[in-house]
């Protein structure tokens, strides 16, 4: 996960035809686009996949028109959001009025949480790789202690204490940051 400056450098490399940079860009932002489609808007897996691919394809063909290279993340968010709303609108034509405004309100709150999660990821990226890995595997990938211990070649009895230490490091890193309150998702 990277901030605006790094994004700008990657976008510039993409524009210069560096296929590796494009792979990097997709890798960096895939969780974000996926979370907006699935968590903020609750799209089905098929709908979310369509929105995900359409968003990245639009980004790829529009790279030369991007006004600010460092603003690729908000650009992706805006496109994903618009496409997700289109999907919901097309499947909810028969529903009574009011469904969409309520959804839009709920989604805005969810987007706020997802943006806070990005801030946490940016802070996480400053931790040692071992901490990033264990936190991601346990909390985001939902892996068991056993799976993590096997993957990282660690004694299973050390996983809980490592997680606690890494969470504490992450909290130290986030000190002073203003993150929104508990999720409503």
């Amino acid at each position, binding site marked *: 996960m990277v901030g605006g400056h790094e994004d700008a450098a990657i976008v510039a490399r993409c524009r210069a035809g560096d296929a590796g940079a494009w792979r990097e860009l997709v890798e960096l932002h895939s969780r974000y686009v*996926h979370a907006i489609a699935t968590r903020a808007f609750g799209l089905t897996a098929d709908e979310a996949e369509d929105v995900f691919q*359409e968003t990245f394809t639009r980004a*790829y063909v529009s790279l030369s*028109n991007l006004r600010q290279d460092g603003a690729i993340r908000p650009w992706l968010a805006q496109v994903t959001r618009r496409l997700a709303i289109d999907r919901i609108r097309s499947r909810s034509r028969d529903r009574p009025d009011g469904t969409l405004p309520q959804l839009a309100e709920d989604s805005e709150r969810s987007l706020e*949480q997802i943006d*806070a999660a990005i801030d946490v990821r940016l802070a996480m990226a400053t931790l040692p790789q071992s901490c990033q890995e264990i936190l991601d595997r346990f909390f985001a990938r939902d892996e068991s202690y056993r799976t993590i211990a096997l993957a990282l070649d660690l004694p299973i009895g050390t996983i809980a204490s490592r997680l606690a230490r890494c969470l504490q490091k*992450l909290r130290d890193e986030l000190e002073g940051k203003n993150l929104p309150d508990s999720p409503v998702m």
Partner: protein
Amino acid sequence: MTEISVERIAELVALLPPAPQAWVEVAQSLPALQSDLGPLLAEWQADREARAAVLADIEQALRAEGVAADADTLRYVRLSLES
């Protein structure tokens, strides 16, 4: 300022699970599509009538050129010609 709890941080880490790997790989393969279809797209983009005809039936246009018209290719051609 309220201190953020480790529980809250854990919730936020959990909010961003990985996207399915297959989705990521499809998106990452766009430069390969560009490489394969670039000359054809440039030809269609240069000719307004050809571009309109392709947009009217992209699947048929690709088949006529011997290109497999899967969903990802159709999307890429549509968005490239519309941009």
